[in-house]
């Protein structure tokens, strides 16, 4: 058994893995269609002559593409200034990258899944929801104003729609900072209802909450992932040398 483990460890390390991954539980995350597409493309014959250390889909050098899932939590009523707002922390554990890997790209992908109460509601031309994305620059001490530790990255006015609203943003420099231990405080997404609607009528769309019938809009479900492309220089010889 010891010999078998040694062989396995040697093979895994040649694949750039320090140990055999033990994914949690039986529930398997679905594979993002984008990764399936890239995998299928790499299996095609012409791909065998292309450079496996360049990710043409993103136009960057790299041989490892990770869909790092969000581990943040939903925080409602966080900001005292807006009880009806929906606040979601986003946290991506980028320490999964090995120290030897060079980060080429970290692209944040957010999808807002709107849940229409009545499709007619959308015919009336739903009012826009304002969305802000901020980075958290330090831990928020108990009782302190969370806003003080945030730096705005993106602010947008979004109209609810039947298909998910997709937002992408290049966060490569920020993700590089997150790789340093103790520097990753994540992000915060805040969705606030249209100004014209009386906040008392609103109930942030949290699973299980009913929302006012006369309003046909809801605060959406927020789904986020970070597409991280990195290059392992030990596994990517420069073409000339070959």
């Amino acid at each position, binding site marked *: 058994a010891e010999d078998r483990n040694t062989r396995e460890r040697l093979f895994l390390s040649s694949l*750039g893995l320090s140990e055999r991954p033990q994914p949690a539980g039986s529930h398997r995350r679905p594979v993002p269609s984008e990764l399936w597409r890239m*995998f299928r493309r790499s299996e095609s014959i012409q791909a065998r002559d292309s450079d496996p250390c360049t990710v043409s889909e993103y136009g960057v050098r790299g041989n490892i593409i990770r869909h790092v899932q969000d581990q943040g939590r939903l925080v409602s009523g966080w900001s005292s200034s807006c009880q009806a707002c929906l606040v979601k922390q986003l946290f991506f554990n980028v320490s999964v990258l090995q120290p030897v890997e060079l980060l080429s790209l970290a692209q944040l992908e957010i999808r807002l899944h709107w849940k229409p109460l009545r499709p007619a509601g959308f015919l009336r031309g739903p009012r826009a929801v304002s969305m802000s994305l901020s980075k958290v620059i330090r831990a928020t001490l108990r009782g302190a104003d969370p806003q003080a530790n945030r730096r705005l990255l993106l602010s947008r006015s979004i109209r609810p729609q039947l298909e998910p609203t997709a937002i992408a943003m290049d966060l490569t420099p920020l993700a590089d900072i997150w790789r340093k231990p103790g520097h990753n405080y994540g992000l915060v997404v805040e969705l606030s209802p249209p100004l014209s609607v009386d906040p008392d009528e609103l109930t942030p769309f949290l699973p299980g909450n009913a929302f006012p019938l006369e309003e046909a809009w809801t605060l959406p479900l927020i789904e986020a992932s970070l597409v991280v492309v990195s290059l392992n220089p030990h596994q990517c010889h420069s073409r000339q040398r070959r």
Partner: protein
Amino acid sequence: SAVHLPVTPSNICKARRLYIDFKDVGWQDWIIAPPGYMANYCHGECPFPLSESLNGTNHAILQTLVHSLDPQGTPQPGCAPIRLSPISMLYYDNNDNVVLRHYQDMVVDECGCR
């Protein structure tokens, strides 16, 4: 003159089939795709005179000549990969993230005498 042992066709240097099945090493629980892949390997003799099909370098041709004159002193050239292809693997990491990884030089396409 050196005695040339007859080289049967199967001994000649060429790529041989080798299929790596990840299930054989119990990796099917974390590797999403592929279930395995054709890695192949090189094996075989590089006899004198080195024919064109053995993709020999000038040095290998010289070495087979010396080997045929002095089999004990100088070995035959080796049978090694001269063209390789990459593969890609989709797998779950320890954080249940989905990872797509490209690996260079994982499939032996062609062998030659070196």
